[in-house]
């Protein structure tokens, strides 16, 4: 290799290494935040519904602090290179999505939309090409939430909340109906989608147990019979 070529290669390489190091730093931060969130949200399984708002309030500031990380990442990524680096933070991002949609469900009972999650995490539309929330990562986060809700259905009953499993059942079925519309190829998203039916089954069993013993309020009547 001649000198000029070696220099060219080195300059490209050095730039890439620098970006990688900077991203790594941010991903470590991002991970800390999503782990803190996971720790807080793990308490939903032992929190009674009247205390839930307080718990969610303690999660929100951490969720919002992710904005600093996304902004820092957007500043590091060169124009049009989002997809080149995204694998470095995709797990953290999916965890953050999971927390955001879970908090929203427990707050309002609805599914936080992709643009709304992006907004929660401070991801700005003008970052297109540098930092975005891809549909795939959003969907992964949503599936994680369903996984978590199947656990919550069980634990809510233990805490004496017989209404929650029925709410969860309706909500998860809507989400599953949405996923059924997608043409997924054989990737991790497909495998995780396939696993949703076990979550649904588990939730159904809880609903069945609860309704059989007439523990659930009668407002859930039509669903209980399934």
């Amino acid at each position: 290799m001649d000198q000029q070529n070696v220099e060219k290669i080195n300059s490209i390489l050095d730039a890439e290494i620098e970006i990688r190091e900077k991203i790594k730093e941010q991903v470590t931060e991002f991970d800390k935040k999503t782990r803190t969130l996971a720790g807080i949200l793990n308490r939903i399984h032992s929190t009674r519904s009247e205390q839930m708002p307080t718990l969610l309030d303690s999660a929100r500031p951490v969720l919002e602090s992710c904005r600093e990380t996304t902004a820092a990442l957007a500043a590091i990524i060169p124009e049009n290179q989002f997809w080149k680096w995204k694998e470095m933070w995709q797990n953290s991002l999916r965890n953050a999505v999971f927390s955001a949609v879970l908090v929203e469900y427990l707050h309002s009972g609805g599914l936080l939309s992709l643009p709304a999650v992006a907004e929660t995490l401070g991801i700005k539309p003008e970052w297109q090409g540098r930092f975005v929330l891809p549909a795939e990562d959003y969907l992964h986060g949503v599936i994680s939430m369903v996984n978590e809700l199947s656990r919550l259905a069980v634990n809510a009953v233990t805490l004496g909340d017989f209404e929650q499993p029925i709410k969860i059942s309706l909500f998860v079925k809507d989400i599953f109906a949405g996923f059924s519309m997608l043409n997924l190829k054989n990737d991790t998203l497909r495998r995780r989608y396939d696993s949703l039916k076990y979550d649904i089954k588990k939730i159904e069993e809880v609903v069945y147990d609860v309704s059989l013993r007439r523990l659930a309020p009668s407002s859930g009547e039509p669903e209980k019979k399934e």
Partner: protein
Amino acid sequence: MASTRVLDSRDTVLPVFEQFREELDDHNDRRERLIKSSRDVTNLSKKVIFLLHRIVTDDAGEFDDKIGRHAAARAKGKFREIQSLFAAMCPELAGERFARYQRNVSPGLQEYIEALSFAHYLEHKSLISYDQVQQSLCDHDGIPYFPLPLEDYLLGLSDLTGELMRFAIASISRRGGRQKASDVCSFVRACKADFERLTPYYRELRKKQHVTAQSLEKIEDAAYAVAVRTSEFDLPPEMLDDLVAQAVSHAADHSGFGDEPRRKRARNAEYGDLDDDL
């Protein structure tokens, strides 16, 4: 954004997932198209490599630099064909898309770089530079179809060493071929040394470095066989060439010639098919 912030019923969830479906379908379709194009590039590039091998080894008579230049000149048209494939892929790879689909076009791109660098070596006896490869992937105004990834450049070059091994062993029995083989040998050695420094950054390159080491060893073994046998005779080079021919076919049998039997078979099969259309 016209969409609702929170989706609280099936009626609001479904349209949103319909959008996801469109988005994912669009992505998967584009990906498939690019994989197909990449395969076309791979095929054409392989043909160019066979063509180059054929010209430099089948041409009767003494091996000299003219044959290398001749081979490179004949490959030019084929390269233009491949470059037009890249040009056609260009709109699908515009902007941020290239980074997204890079791994889908990488195989073709690397095979192209392998072919291009082989032709370049035959013509100039040197390693094609990053800039030269990038220049070959530009439109008439010199605007790149896409930024050449350093990794693909390096991995393409790493494959070149395998082709050079075949070239060296095939030409070693010819007049002037021993000099050629020795040139190739030191060239491949230099390549291996150059790449070694970069292996910590690219995992694939580390794997290919093993193949390069094997190729180098095959050339060295062939050179050794030649050296041992020539030392026994005090003959003029032309007469030695005949003896060498025997030694080489022997060495090639033992070293397996190709790096994998499957590839060797495919190659022989294609040899027959391609003679007509090239």
